[in-house]
């Protein structure tokens, strides 16, 4: 249970960064940390005691496997995380070229 709690704390650290930091790069770091804690949580859910990695070998027909379903889902989510991060970085580059700062308090033309 402590592992789940530490995972939750890692998520909260990322959430704190997203809510309180004013730098765009720091906000992106907070988002990445939240993502990684969720991947960790999914991998923890699928773990089975003394299980082996879900790869079938000839001699071990009756071996106990780790659950392959959360791993497949996390594999998809990791790649999507890369796509969103690169999109965020592209927006950060554009904002820096236009306003010459990463400070979201000075990027004030976004109304509404």
């Amino acid at each position, binding site marked *: 249970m402590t592992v789940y709690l530490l995972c939750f704390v890692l998520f909260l650290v990322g959430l704190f960064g997203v809510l309180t930091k004013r730098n765009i790069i720091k906000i992106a770091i907070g988002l990445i940390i939240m993502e990684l804690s969720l991947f*960790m949580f999914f991998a923890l859910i699928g773990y089975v005691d003394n299980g082996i990695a879900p790869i079938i070998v000839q001699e071990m027909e009756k071996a106990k496997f780790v659950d392959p379903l959360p791993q497949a889902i996390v594999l998809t989510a990791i790649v999507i995380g890369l796509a969103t991060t690169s999109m965020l970085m592209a927006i950060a580059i554009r904002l820096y070229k236009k306003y010459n700062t990463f400070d979201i308090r000075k990027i004030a033309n976004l109304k509404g």
Partner: protein
Amino acid sequence: MEIILSIILVFMILGAIYALYARDLLSALISCGIVGYGLVICFLLLQAPDLAIVQIVVETITLLIMIAVVLDSSREELKEKKVVGTKLSHFRKWYVMNVILVIVCLVVLLYFFKEVTSTLDPLGKHLTRMSTAYIENAAEKTGSANLVTGVLFDFRGYDTLGEATILFTAVIGVLAILRAKGKKTNNL
């Protein structure tokens, strides 16, 4: 097993906190890499080699992209405004209020965390409900020795198709955002 995972997770949390408070954005990104590569070790301990491989590659690419962005622009963290002496009493007035709010939020979050995790199995006692069929039949149905790729590309092939769509959309979005100039209308 649980103790080793806890130690690595504490290390990751420390790295995350330093990443949020570093003055230099470059060192913030490097300590963000602590979190990612610590996750790789956790995946290896949790018997997920596919995830470890993908996470190493993706973490490296993410760090490279972000370091390129930071080196191309400013490395300094923003300067915080100094609290003026007259505002100090105003700050004191809200001090008690802030502490009470933080404690209330923490209690609510921990309560819901306890509620949610009470429905989960404890670590290592997981029962493979739905994926039992995957484990038993994957070898005959998909012909793949690796069950994760069997699930990813055969049983849940449409998920992978959606993932490819998202990647493609992200590439189009990055190209559209970073395009240097719009098309000139009079040069057509």
